[in-house]
């Protein structure tokens, strides 16, 4: 065990694992985080706390993580490379570990152009793969400069993202391999809204035996509207929504119900897929739907580990 988090234990046990996501609010109102934690408690092994997602200023992921711990929910702290240099990031890692947070997810971060402070300066002192390597060094007792820690190293279970829907397609597998080489223990993929492409990507992953080196959780996002699905497909870089799903939502009388149907079917499909260790359910601004999805797919109740 690297950190002994519930997420790590569940993945190691071989059970189909479930992670969720909570987007902290644009305010210091921690009750919003607490409300979502209470709503989702028991349905997932751990909950990602986004780090100023889409470059919009929000309650910090570590701050939100503390609230989750108070609610007996396990946080997965996201850290993006956009806003902090290696000094600040390592300091935050130590702080998170001191508060009892064990899972950290390393990301490049959305460019600040998309956020609410587009005139800000970005940092990118290190990139996401270098960040994984730094965290791996830290848990082995070394700072990024090679200096040995004089005290107990932080226990961290290291996560990363993988995007099978970005380009160049074949290189997305190499990039995941680099993340595994850097020391990542698990990966959560971009929301799978094109299963055919995801299947092809997983074939390449398996061909390289990567699924044996890194635990793969497939991203699930239930779609709420046809408009949003079309928008994501057309305008969001690194996202793809298959025409089949768009057509199904288009024809459905109850679009939201159809969105949930699709998500449940996807989970059933993924459960049978070799190399898939679980799912990462991202229902931002629709958190209340997560329990229903988990119940319908038999992912609730969660096994004890």
């Amino acid at each position, binding site marked *: 065990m690297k950190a002994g988090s519930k997420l790590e234990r569940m993945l190691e046990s071989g059970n189909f694992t479930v992670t969720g996501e909570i987007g902290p609010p644009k305010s210091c109102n921690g009750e919003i985080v607490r409300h979502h934690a209470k709503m989702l408690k028991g349905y997932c092994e751990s909950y990602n706390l986004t780090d100023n997602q889409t470059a919009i200023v929000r309650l910090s992921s570590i701050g939100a993580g503390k609230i989750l711990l108070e609610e007996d929910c396990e946080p997965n702290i996201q850290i993006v490379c956009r806003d902090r240099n290696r000094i600040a990031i390592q300091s935050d890692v130590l702080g998170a570990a001191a508060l009892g947070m064990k899972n950290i997810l390393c990301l490049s971060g959305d460019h600040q152009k998309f956020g609410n402070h587009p005139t800000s300066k970005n940092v990118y002192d290190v990139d996401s793969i270098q960040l994984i390597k730094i965290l791996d060094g830290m848990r082995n007792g070394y700072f990024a400069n090679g200096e040995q820690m004089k005290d107990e190293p932080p226990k961290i279970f290291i996560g990363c993202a993988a995007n099978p829907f970005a380009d160049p397609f074949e290189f997305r597998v190499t*990039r995941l391999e680099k993340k595994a080489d850097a020391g990542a223990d698990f990966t959560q993929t971009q929301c799978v809204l094109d299963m055919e492409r995801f299947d092809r990507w997983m074939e390449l992953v398996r061909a390289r035996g990567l699924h044996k080196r890194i635990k793969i959780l497939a991203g699930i996002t239930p779609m709420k509207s046809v408009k949003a699905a079309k928008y994501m497909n057309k305008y969001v870089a690194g996202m793809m929504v298959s025409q089949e799903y768009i057509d199904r939502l288009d024809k459905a009388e109850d679009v939201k119900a159809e969105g949930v149907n699709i998500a449940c079917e996807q989970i059933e499909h993924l459960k049978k897929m070799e190399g898939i260790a679980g799912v990462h359910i991202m229902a931002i601004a629709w958190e209340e739907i997560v329990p229903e999805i988990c119940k319908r797919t038999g992912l609730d109740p969660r096994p004890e580990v």
Partner: protein
Amino acid sequence: MIIAERKPIEEILGLLSRHQKVLVLGCGGCVTVCLAGGEKEVGILSSQLAMARSKEERPLEVVQQTVERQCDFEYLEGIRHIVKDVDAILSLACGIGIQTCAEAFPDKIVWPGVNTKFLGVNLNVGEWAERCQACGQCVLDKTGGICPVARCSKSIFNGPCGGSQDGKCEVSPDTDCAWALIHDRLTRLGEVDSLREIMPVKDWSYSRDGGPRKLVREDLELESGK
């Protein structure tokens, strides 16, 4: 080449509002090539300024001059006699030329007439693109001659990030993804496997992060007998 763009005329008029006599000083280097501050632009801007001010009935006397290179103290010596008689200098050189001017003429106000944009290349008529950020430690040997520091929106070293699609950057459909270009070029050269290696964290101390930079070459100092 250093790419610059002339500041809007309104902004320049604002900078010069309290002066009666100014020197509009062009540069024969990069800003001449990128059509922002050469002799021709000095001429055009000077007429525009004089016309605008005469309309306001507050005439502005404009002296025009363009030197070989404003970033060289040597060339600025030759205009000392002109500088003496003006209230201020409006420099159309890049940020380096403007500062050299300010250093050469410590008692004279020097205004910037251009915005220095980047180190880049001329792609088409009227189109320039960034190519180098002078980070101080070149990595082009590892990236197929395409710079991730200057051309990747996130300056990452192990790209492309998840925002790369159809060869374009998440920032804009008009921006090529540098890492897609690197990947494609190394594939063409049969060297794409080199990208499987993790590029280590960069030593930014060679860049601006190490503080303002200075280069001293002792071999040249010795040669010149200083």
